[in-house]
């Protein structure tokens, strides 16, 4: 098997798995329980939160960590929770057209609730037009939510400059949220640009089912779930010590090796990039000002991507596409469409995403298989 869908999910780190199993045997108490067992776990969890904040270079006296089930829930809590709680301050919200569905669809819900949402265009070079951004800020704007690394094409948005504009505007109540699900451990980012940020465990070899929303302490949110009042009354539900511990552990481990992993994956990226560009019938999406090396997206211009992906899959080479082999559902990549304005390219885009475990040999096999498939399959 050659696994090139690491932006979709990653293999769990062996140490993490070992820890998780041990914790389920040794630390199975309810951290909210008022007995010694539970209280010890609760004490540990407070420390894990501090560890995570320290790794992200965020001040533990300014920021809180709220553990959630993952990035989707974190994005929901941040956006829905903030907009609903603060609607008296204004009803204008800003996001971009290339966000993950767990952001875009939340804004669509808020539109139904009477909010006015601006969806920013993204230029072909993967950046936001700053003059335009400046022009749409209003007194009623309360929230800007933008991703850093895009999950489909790997472009890195110019959020440093966006932050600058927000800072310089007269509106001091704008809260800046960022979905960093594909950024954590994969691209260097200054986390303190953001008032709220979303992170996730299983994109960096952690376990599925845990993520976090990190937010400045003074920001008020409306909870999505009610119950026992865990996580500052913002996310009720028994805390999973084993999941939390595993998450803190992988964040620490993965970010410690960041430079090394990054350089290694970059070498894979350049190799792949070069090879893909030699193949006829392929257009690599690479016009970005900044590009995270963990993700490459290309379109098949003469063959249907769904068939190419199916053929790769039959050779146990796993990559990702938006459209499936179905005449009824023509799904296009909203991200590639936004960046290229080309429907054919958006329909036939393929994403490959790396991890530190991939090798040049694997990429070579992938490239050769891809060439062979493009030659052999019939049809458009």
């Amino acid at each position, binding site marked *: 098997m050659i696994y090139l869908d690491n932006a979709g999910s990653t293999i769990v780190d062996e140490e993490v798995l070992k820890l998780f199993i041990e914790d389920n045997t040794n630390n199975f108490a309810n951290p909210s329980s008022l007995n010694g067992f539970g209280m010890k776990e609760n004490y540990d969890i407070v420390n894990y939160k501090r560890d995570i904040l320290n790794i992200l270079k965020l001040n533990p006296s300014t920021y809180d960590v709220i553990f959630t089930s993952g990035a989707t829930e974190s994005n929901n809590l941040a956006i829905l929770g903030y907009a609903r709680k603060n609607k008296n301050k204004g009803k204008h919200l800003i996001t971009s057209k290339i966000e993950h569905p767990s952001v875009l669809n939340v804004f669509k819900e808020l539109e139904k609730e009477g909010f006015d949402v601006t969806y920013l265009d993204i230029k072909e070079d993967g950046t936001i037009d700053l003059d335009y951004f400046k022009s749409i800020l209003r007194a009623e704007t309360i929230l800007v939510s933008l991703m850093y690394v895009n999950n489909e094409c790997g472009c890195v948005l110019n959020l440093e400059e966006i932050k600058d504009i927000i800072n310089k505007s007269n509106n001091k109540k704008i809260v800046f949220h960022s979905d960093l699900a594909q950024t954590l451990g994969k691209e260097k980012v200054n986390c303190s640009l953001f008032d709220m940020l979303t992170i996730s465990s299983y994109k960096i070899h952690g376990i599925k089912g845990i993520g976090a929303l990190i937010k400045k302490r003074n920001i008020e949110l409306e909870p999505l779930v009610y119950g026992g009042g865990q996580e500052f009354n913002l996310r009720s539900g028994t805390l999973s010590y084993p999941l939390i511990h595993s998450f803190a552990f992988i964040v620490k481990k993965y970010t410690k090796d960041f430079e090394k992993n990054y350089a290694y994956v970059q070498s894979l990226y350049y190799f792949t990039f070069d090879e893909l560009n030699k193949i006829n019938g392929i257009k690599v999406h690479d016009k970005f000002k900044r590009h995270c090396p963990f993700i490459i997206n290309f379109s098949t211009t003469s063959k*249907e991507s769904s*068939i190419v992906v*199916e*053929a790769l899959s039959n050779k146990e080479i796993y990559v990702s596409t938006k459209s499936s*082999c*179905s005449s*009824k*559902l023509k799904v296009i990549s909203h991200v590639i469409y936004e960046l290229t304005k080309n429907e054919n390219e958006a329909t036939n885009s393929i994403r490959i995403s790396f991890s530190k475990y991939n090798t040049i040999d694997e990429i070579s096999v992938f490239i050769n298989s891809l060439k062979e498939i493009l030659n052999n399959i019939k049809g*458009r």
Partner: protein
Amino acid sequence: MEFNTIIIRFGEMSTKGKNKKDFINRLASSINNHLKDYENSYEMRKRHDHIYLDLKEEIPNLVDILKEISGMYSFSLAKKIEDCDLENLKDIALEEIQKEEGKTFKVKTRRIDKSYPYVSDEINREIASKILKNTSLKVDVHNPEILLSIEIRDDGAYMFFKTIKGMGGYPKGAIGRSLMMLSGGIDSPVASYLLMRRGVELSFIHFASPPYTSVAVLYKLEDILKSLNVYQNKINLYIVPFTKIQEEIYNHSFEGYEVTIMRRMMYRLTEKLAKKLHIFALSNGESIGQVASQTLESLNTINAVTNYPIIRPLATYDKTEIISIAKKINTYEISIRPYEDCCTIFPIKKPKTMPKISECLKIEEKFDYEALLNEAIENVELKIIKG
């Protein structure tokens, strides 16, 4: 009423003369099969006109299980009374009718055991008058709210209030076997159900064209067939590798003829496999006029490749009828999953609605399809789906 016996009636198959014994045996074994988890909970008695199930203990969801067995016209949940003395019957009838809901009633007796000392009318009158005297119920012979049926037989009297309509048709396998073309869409599972209900035992053939069709189609087919396991508890699915044939069609076909030629090849393959399996009829989910390949002209051109009978249970059904049956048999939700057996290999812009056989022959002359078909049949893969 607490029932202890199920009376099962045959309906249609009771007209079938000398095959009747075989039908009854098939129905009996089909019932035993559906109730195999409860084999110690009942005893079966087969008679020329009914099958009786004498219950020794309660069988959960019994009514629902029986409703899904083909070859059963109706069944009644009855109380068997061994002591047929009229006074005893009157007492029990009075006791039982008071547990039913309704204000009007009718007693309907059939005296099958002619040695019983009273005729049907006398029994009706005797029992009705006892009920009239002791309750506030009134008689209504035309539209009674409560119908008390009594059958007097040599082994006792059977009393029941409710008769439930069965699935009808013939018992499983009574009519023979057919090879069903299964795509994964909405229609073919419904056509399969209609055939199974008529007592036809089905094997299935599917044409797989990886990578043009997804492996997910196969997961979908297994799910569909699992839903059909209710009616046939062991199903053979034959998967034919179809990619090479598709590609050759793509290479040689005139524009608009791709689907016609493809269907002709599928029919040929189905016939070849049927021959091998000693199956004498083909079947599919085609419904006239639904798509270009299902106009009467198309069907004529496609059908011309085989002499086998092709059963199309859905020929005259419209889509809404098909969908409502698909929902009833729980295949609809599976069929509408995105992976379908579509042939994205063809840039089908304008499929011919009136394809000509002569044109098809011209295209088919251009490549040695016979060899490809034989190769495909040799590489067929069998999956057995069990309930």
